[in-house]
């Protein structure tokens, strides 16, 4: 039972990180970022290169410092990838006609090209990341949970809390929420759509990078490893109500548990069916998603 809860929460944390990023980008920049999978993988490879470099030159293969470095570089790498996506798809297009569709196509193009470039550089084999939380297991009575799972849940929760607080309390966070509500009005109080948009892309990139490193504990990094998180992240951010942090997190928990339960009692191949059925059910009864903040805001 505890194992089921743990794996459900692990999936929820990972999906939550990616989905909150997609949701943040959509609501502040107004662009559905299909290149989020590319951003995700980019951070994974940066973390892998760092681990490889440390192992080769300093023979450091584990330890707290290496783990910290892997996490930080994964996040920084993905934040940079987010800025690249912004530079290619957002800055040149955002004040042109029909930006949502153009942005969608541009990010799709980046996503496809990115996968091919990764393939070219790193080859199709998966690359392992170091086990950042160690390989021991935490014992609770007769059950045991891997440290990796506990670490993933804790880190993801803490980071999402920090982002939520930052959005609520800081000046930049206020600007970003203002931009979600009314981009024109935000412009008039001095919020630069371009700067704030790039910040939003970098933050959602960093979240994806964290998810990438955490997922790298279970599945290795490969050129296409961003596809699954992108798809699930997209449907979660839809089900959560694009733009709503609490709604997105709730949807991530629901879909994470749906996957954990399905995979345990039936087969892994049923997982997408159950997930999509769940999302369709949510959107049938709550067309604006669970959070539904965009009720009368951005149309």
């Amino acid at each position, binding site marked *: 039972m505890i194992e089921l809860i743990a794996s459900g929460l692990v999936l929820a944390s990972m999906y939550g990180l990616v989905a909150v990023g997609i949701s943040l980008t959509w609501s502040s920049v107004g662009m559905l970022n299909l290149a989020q999978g590319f951003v995700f993988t980019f951070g994974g490879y940066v973390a892998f290169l760092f681990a490889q470099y440390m192992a080769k030159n300093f023979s450091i293969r584990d330890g707290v410092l290496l783990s910290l470095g892997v996490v930080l570089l994964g996040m920084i790498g993905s934040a940079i990838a987010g800025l690249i996506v912004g530079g290619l798809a957002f800055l040149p297009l955002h004040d042109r006609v029909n930006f949502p569709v153009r942005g969608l196509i541009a990010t799709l193009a980046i996503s496809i090209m990115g996968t091919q470039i990764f393939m070219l550089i790193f080859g199709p084999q998966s690359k392992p990341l170091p086990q950042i939380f160690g390989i021991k297991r935490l014992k609770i009575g007769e059950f045991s949970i891997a440290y990796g799972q506990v670490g993933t849940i804790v880190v993801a929760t803490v980071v999402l809390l920090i982002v939520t607080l930052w959005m609520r309390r800081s000046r930049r966070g*206020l*600007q970003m*929420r203002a931009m979600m509500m*009314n981009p024109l009005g*935000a*412009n*008039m*109080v*001095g919020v*630069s759509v371009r700067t704030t948009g790039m910040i939003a892309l970098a933050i959602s990139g960093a979240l994806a990078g964290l998810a990438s490193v955490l997922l790298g504990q279970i599945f290795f990094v490969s050129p296409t490893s961003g596809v699954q998180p992108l798809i699930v992240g997209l449907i979660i951010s839809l089900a959560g109500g694009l733009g709503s942090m609490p709604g997105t997190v709730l949807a991530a928990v629901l879909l994470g548990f749906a996957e954990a339960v399905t995979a345990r009692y039936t087969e892994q191949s049923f997982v997408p069916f159950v997930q999509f059925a769940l999302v369709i059910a949510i959107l049938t009864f709550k067309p604006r998603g669970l959070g539904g903040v965009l009720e009368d805001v951005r149309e």
Partner: protein
Amino acid sequence: MREVSSGYGTMRVIHGLNFTIDPGERIGLVGLNGHGKTTLISTIVGMTGWQDGSIEFMGQQIGGRRSHGVGRNTPKIVRSGIAIAPQGDAIFPGLTVEENLASGAYTEGAWKTRKQRRDAILEVFPPLRTRLKQSAGTLSGGERRMVSVGRALMADAKLYLVDEPSLGLAPKISIGLVDALCKIDLGDGAMLIAEQNLPLLSGRCDRILGMHAGELKEDVGEAFGDIPPAAEM
């Protein structure tokens, strides 16, 4: 402003305007619908389709010739010290009144003193006091306008542009709003209020400029002076 023209696409709305606003001055801009009041305000903050001529603000060129990039410089111009309360209201409906006001305090200095600034604005618009935690989308029209104007006043600006504060409001409420606007102590900041309703402004501003078909008529105050206020209602 010297020889400023502006418009949208192939349309020229403003025709070669020349005028100056002095520090501490309160100016009324009067004119009928569609004669360019809003366009003039949009021009100052760079939100028209194109513009030409020179707009100087505190020794800095903020206008100049431009034919693309609508609104791209607006944040920079706003941060250089021009606060704007747009026509209708461009408030943020999902944020609380408090957050709406705080978003006006964009500059570093204004952000740090946002509590004092907010209290000063609550003095001017007391009805907002009980609404601080309420989301701005649920307010009445008059209260929304107060939030919109209040947000502009939160800024640490040298020039406040207020576009049609009375639009769509009941006469009694709009009189109260304009009264409040004219009572605020701006220090050395100047204010430009665009308005269709001349009697609302006359006697309350330092200077009243008339606007007709995209051209300025200086000091039209007396020309309209003999129109009884009732006719305007």
